[in-house]
């Protein structure tokens, strides 16, 4: 992945407005976080290939970036985004990596479901 180019990401976000898209959204501090100390808990959530439609999409900030998708009845939000995949044919892949290069947040939208590469 490469550092986010804000204007190019905004262009791509705009291209998905008012269409049915598939969302992958996740955040995690790692399943082994519990081993780091008594008061640390492993925290994470992901949703994958949830279809939705949004009417407005904005990338904000100066890095790390935030993204908000405004939907008819609510919002999708992610923060801490640092990198994107500029070469990808279909779908917009954004991620936030910590100081050691580990993924801490991912935000992805695509016109087709994610996961075909797994095979």
């Amino acid at each position, binding site marked *: 992945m490469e550092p986010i180019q804000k204007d190019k990401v905004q262009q791509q976000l705009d291209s998905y407005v008012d269409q049915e898209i598939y969302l992958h959204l996740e955040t995690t501090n790692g399943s082994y976080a519990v081993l780091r100390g008594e008061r640390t808990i492993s925290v994470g959530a*992901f949703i994958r290939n949830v279809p939705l439609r949004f009417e407005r999409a904005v990338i904000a900030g100066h890095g790390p970036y935030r993204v908000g998708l405004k939907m008819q009845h609510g919002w999708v939000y992610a923060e801490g985004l640092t990198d994107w995949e500029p070469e990808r044919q279909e779908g917009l892949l954004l991620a936030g990596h910590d100081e050691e290069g580990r993924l801490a947040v991912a935000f992805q939208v695509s016109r087709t479901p994610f996961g075909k*590469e797994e095979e």
Partner: protein
Amino acid sequence: MKPHVLVVYPHPDDETFGPGGTIILHAQAGTPVTYLCGTLGQMGRNMGNPIMANRETLPKLRKLELQQAAKILGISDLRMMGYHDKTVEFEDREVLVKRILDVIEEIQPTVVYTYYPGHAVHPDHEAMAEATVEALSRIPAEQRPVLYCQAISNNRLEALGEPDVSVDITSVAEIKLQAIKAHYTQTAQTAARLEKAYANKDPEIIPWLTVERFYTYRWE
């Protein structure tokens, strides 16, 4: 009975970091090793250093890494179960148990390795370990293979005491290190540190590459 080893873990690299050296020793002794790997570690946080993977390319890369590491360890029969990382505990447990049991009945292992249930930390580890114990519990006691479990919880020593089995892997430490490095996306940073520490005989790191410890599972 002809010796055959079965290894059951959920993520590519669990087999290397856990019983990697022990697997190499089994393979060097000519024993066939079957590895049932639950997922492709699709949700891993490590993406290589420099970052070379994204959430969508990671499973493909980890599959290649797993195949390479299996070759290095001497695993003769690698079977990927096709579950999605982080979701094993939510799957139909009976189906999972049955799949493991089918393999046990097919290959007739004499020794099985997995995590120690309750001391496996990651929910996928726990689910695979519990299902493995459940599958083995359905084998009549006199035919049941020996089950060796690794515990990685912080409270393992208080709860379980000292592991009763210690395998000296000194002779294959460098091969284990190669297998660790084969899981490149996951170990790019740690492998370099590990290699350096090993070369410098760092007392913190040396045990990692010289001894692997297991609890013989006690059936009630």
